[in-house]
């Protein structure tokens, strides 16, 4: 039997209605739910709680790598030519702290960028289901649903709190055989 997957797109211009609809959708636990907004919304974070972002691990690893290089490189290079100058030790940790500090920040920042790109799935080419209004002042969601669920979700979207959805679209989703 064909169990096709549909995507329902709802676009809202009223924030309160959007949040109400989102609450009722989230109640029936839709995993395949994407919420769009022109700015970060903390109400959405409350309704759809997420684990702390994995970007911080990238930053941490980057920082450690930078720190290691920042100490390793100067220590390695001075030992290549261990010449005592000014009566000071060859491995001068105090001076190398500065190099290590700067490289910690540098690698931490570069890895943060990589972490963001990895976790936010950027860069991406496919914007087919996206709506330009999501970056203007509209809020939206795309809900993945099987054939038998479509009617229920549509009803839920339209009925929740006297909701008027500005636009409700059926997007032909992938068809899973």
């Amino acid at each position: 039997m064909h169990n096709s997957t549909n995507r329902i797109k709802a676009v809202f211009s009223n924030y309160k209605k959007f949040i109400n609809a989102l609450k009722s959708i989230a109640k029936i636990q839709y995993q395949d739910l994407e919420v769009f907004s022109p700015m970060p919304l903390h109400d959405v974070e409350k309704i759809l709680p997420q684990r702390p972002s994995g970007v911080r691990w990238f930053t941490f690893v980057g920082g450690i790598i930078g720190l290691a290089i920042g100490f390793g490189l100067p220590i390695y290079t001075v030992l290549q030519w261990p010449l005592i100058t000014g009566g000071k030790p060859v491995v001068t940790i105090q001076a190398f702290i500065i190099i290590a500090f700067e490289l910690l920040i540098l690698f931490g920042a570069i890895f943060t960028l990589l972490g963001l790109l990895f976790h936010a799935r950027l860069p991406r080419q496919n914007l087919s289901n996206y709506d330009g209004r999501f970056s203007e002042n509209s809020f939206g969601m795309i809900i993945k649903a099987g054939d038998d669920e479509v009617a229920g979700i549509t009803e839920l979207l339209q009925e929740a709190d006297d909701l008027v959805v500005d636009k409700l679209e059926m997007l032909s989703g992938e068809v899973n055989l």
Partner: protein
Amino acid sequence: MNKENYFAPMLTADQVNSRVIEPLKKPGKAFYFMIALFIGFILIGTICLGKQIFQGLGVAGMNNPVAWGIYLTNFVFWVGIAHSGTLISAILYLFRSRWRTSVNRIAEAMTVFAVMMAGLFPLIHVGRIWFAYWLFPYPNARTLWVNFRSPLNWDVFAVSTYITVSSLFFIVGMIPDMAVLRDRFKGMRSKIYGFFAMGWRGTHKQWHHYETAYLLFAALATPLVISVHSIVSWDFAMSILPGWHSTIFAPYFVSGAIFSGCAMVITILYPLRKIFHLEDLVTEKHFTRLAQIMLLTSLIVTYSYLTEFFVAWYSNNIFEQESFYNRAFGYYGVYFFIMFICNSILPLSIFVKKIRTNVKILFFISIFVNIGMWLERFVIIITSLSRDFDPYAWGNYAPTYIEWGIFLGSIGGFLLLFFFFTKFAPVVAISEVKGQIHHDIQGGDHA
């Protein structure tokens, strides 16, 4: 939390897009005139630099004992300007200052362009610019590496890290706004903005990771900004020269940098706001806030000036005492007093509420602060070098037209980059302002 509204009343999120996108439309005649003017400045700078490259560093006024002239003054000046951008975008972000959203983009752009200009000057200063890569650590033919104990080498690491991190911060901060522009424009422009938006869609998952990344960037940039100018100050403080060899240099330079940076933000923001009609987004309150930071840092800088003199007197060291007497009353004394008036006396007027809330007066004060802060670096570098320990080695310095020309070129380069930025990128962080307005209206707690 301060619940004061920083935007014009009745400004809605819808209007933010149009307000910010309007400046990106076809520019007028004045724009082209300014572009031509700045390219002219750059040409003058390039010709002067060319003369220096072909004829040697002798065309500049530097000589014994003043081997660090206004190239290094300009370097410290531009690095200083660069500091307010990170202050406003990172430090104030960590402090959750709500007013930063209207001005952070401009300040970040200023940071990136100012560091670019700053990075040029050490290269110009060393003369043989084509050997500039010697600064970076790589094993040469004799497996000799750079000297990691030298403050000048710390500077290489600090400034190159700063230019990288502030650029990343700037570019990452623009990703959601680039998506806005991608969706508003058509054709080629949409494609170019789309490239920088990298396929941003604004899903809740993306925002979640984006906010974490932004916070981490801010957390990394905050210690960085303080370290960079500390290291710049150690270029001087690590030497044994009277007038340079001082432990207060790091905090003194950092506060001076933020002081000059905020002044430059006001100097640039004032005309920009008028030209692009951003009065609703950038209100008097933003200027007042910037002025308050200026006042605070001005007081710290003034305190440092006075402390330096006190320590010189109290040390009972004749070299220190002579060095500071010479700074105020010697050959370059007049510059010291101009500097003191611009940086310490004039900003005191910000204490008066009428002045603090008057954008036009603040603009004029900010120009004097810019001049004063340039002179501060001039005074520190040149007076200290010109009167060393040994009277036999004393000597005066005056910049030649080559050095002024290159300085003019850097101003042209900075302003040209800034003008292009205002035409091709959103000058106000759209998504952040929208988020701010959204929370003001919804009354949501976003702390």
